[in-house]
């Protein structure tokens, strides 16, 4: 089912957190390959370890067992090859929109003329062309998240990790940003791991949807989404996927409430 060579290989990754002096497992034996240019969505009940898994791939958190390989090499901490978009609109408030977008390029010492071109390109891509000189406090939530996406893209990482990036947005803005992300991916062809609670969002965006079990998180089932690149949220096969995945997710959510 994997369309290309594995870009990310999550190899038997486990994670336990010390809670009251005891080790509480959060992730158990996660084995997952993400292909180059693949859009992978992760679904699962709250607290099942989705963020933990993403943080391990980002290099923020060390797994207790297993390794994460990127291009066959074990990762060593966070790095510019894996861009991250957080749920909490994490922008540098003291930098303008342009300053935020060019942050990674400035770190690399890219000359300013080239930086400006890149900033313009990605701000246009996320539909914020006229807002380069604004500061984050002047933006709405949706605009902030667009800037965060532009910032991640402008640094041209091969991989982008997104943890519920649209989770805090209203339904309309959310669908607009889904459309934009889907359009951007058709241009940029990143390898994306995207955590979400919305099954609709997952089916709309993903090449494959991974459903995790309730805590401690394991992989329960993987759904390849065989839908056209440009998707229609009301097409019968779309809703078919939606209800199929909903059924599986519900089984796990029910376990949490038992």
């Amino acid at each position: 089912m994997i369309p290309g060579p594995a870009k990310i290989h999550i190899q038997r990754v486990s994670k336990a957190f010390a809670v009251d002096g005891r080790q509480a497992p959060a992730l158990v034996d996660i084995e997952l390959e993400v292909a180059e240019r693949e859009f992978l969505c992760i679904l699962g009940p709250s607290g099942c370890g989705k963020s933990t898994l993403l943080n391990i791939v980002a290099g923020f958190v060390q797994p207790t067992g297993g390794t994460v390989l990127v291009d066959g090499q074990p990762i060593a901490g966070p790095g510019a090859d894996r861009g991250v978009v957080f749920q909490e609109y994490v922008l540098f408030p003291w930098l303008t929109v342009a300053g935020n977008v060019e942050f990674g390029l400035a770190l690399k010492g890219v000359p300013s003329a080239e930086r400006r071109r890149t900033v313009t390109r990605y701000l246009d891509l996320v539909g914020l062309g006229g807002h380069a000189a604004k500061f984050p406090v002047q933006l709405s939530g949706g605009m902030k998240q667009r800037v965060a996406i532009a910032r991640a893209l402008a640094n041209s990482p091969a991989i982008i990790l997104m943890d519920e990036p649209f989770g805090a947005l209203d339904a309309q803005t959310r669908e607009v940003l889904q459309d934009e992300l889907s359009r951007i991916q058709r241009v940029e062809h990143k390898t994306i791991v995207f955590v979400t609670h919305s099954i609709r969002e997952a089916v709309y965006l993903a090449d494959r949807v991974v459903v995790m079990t309730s805590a401690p998180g394991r992989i329960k089932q993987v759904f390849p989404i065989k839908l056209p690149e440009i998707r229609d949220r009301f097409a019968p096969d779309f809703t078919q996927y939606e209800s199929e995945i909903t059924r599986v997710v519900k089984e796990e959510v029910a376990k949490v409430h038992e």
Partner: protein
Amino acid sequence: MLAETQPRRLESAPGVANLAVGSFVSSVPELMEWGLRGSALPRRRALTLRLGSVLVFLGLWCLVSGLVVLLELFNPIFLPGPWMVIGAVIELGAKGQLWVHIASTLERVAVGFGTGAVLALGLGLPAGYFRAVRNLVEPVVELLRPIPPLAVLPLFIVWVGIGEGSKIGFITYATFFPMFLTTVHAVRQIDPLLLRAAQSLGARPTQLFRRVILPAALPEILTGVRLGVALSFFVIVISEFIGAEHGLGFLINDGRNFFLVPQMLGAAIVLGLLGWSGNEALRLLERRLLRWQHPG
């Protein structure tokens, strides 16, 4: 029934008092909001109000000291009118002395506060970021901090003599603690997600420090610096009371020795003006550096 309840109500007078206090306190957020929204006052009106309050104060001062003279309440030397104070200041200025005193006070403040700031930032930034450094430095600071700086002034004099060293050291000592503590706190309150975001954009440790930790901690650090400047002017006077030949604190003490009340008040007012200008200058700097907080 009614007759019974009434006296009880009277008995609960303390409760009523509490209520009154309570209602006053509950209006504090309201007051604060009012104060915070104060800046929305038209600029000209705000300026008029400020000028007005200064003039009213001067007017009252004139009135009271004038009444003292007119009604011969007590020796007017105890409460000279503003004209006499201004006269004393002008006289000192004309003789060229005032500038010497101002300069030596400012020099002590600059060196003492500057050293305090460098030490506070130099220790506070790493102590905020590295737990190991914090565990090393903080216990000592916590141990020394509750000692009022005044209590160590005599010690400084014993250790480094009565000259410039003890005066400057005293300011450094007094200003170090608040600036150190605000710096540590400023770094510790940085959202860890900002660090993660920068790291996954490729920031190496030195870049992280310069491009994220410093700017993210800056607002609170500046508040601490402002506190430090205010404190410098606060403590410099005391150290200039002892064994100084120049400085505004010396002028005040000198005025006391020779019963020159206008000179005492004049020096105090000049000190107040200096402290105020320092604070205003820092606020201007703050507004420029932190424009991102209130752009547009």
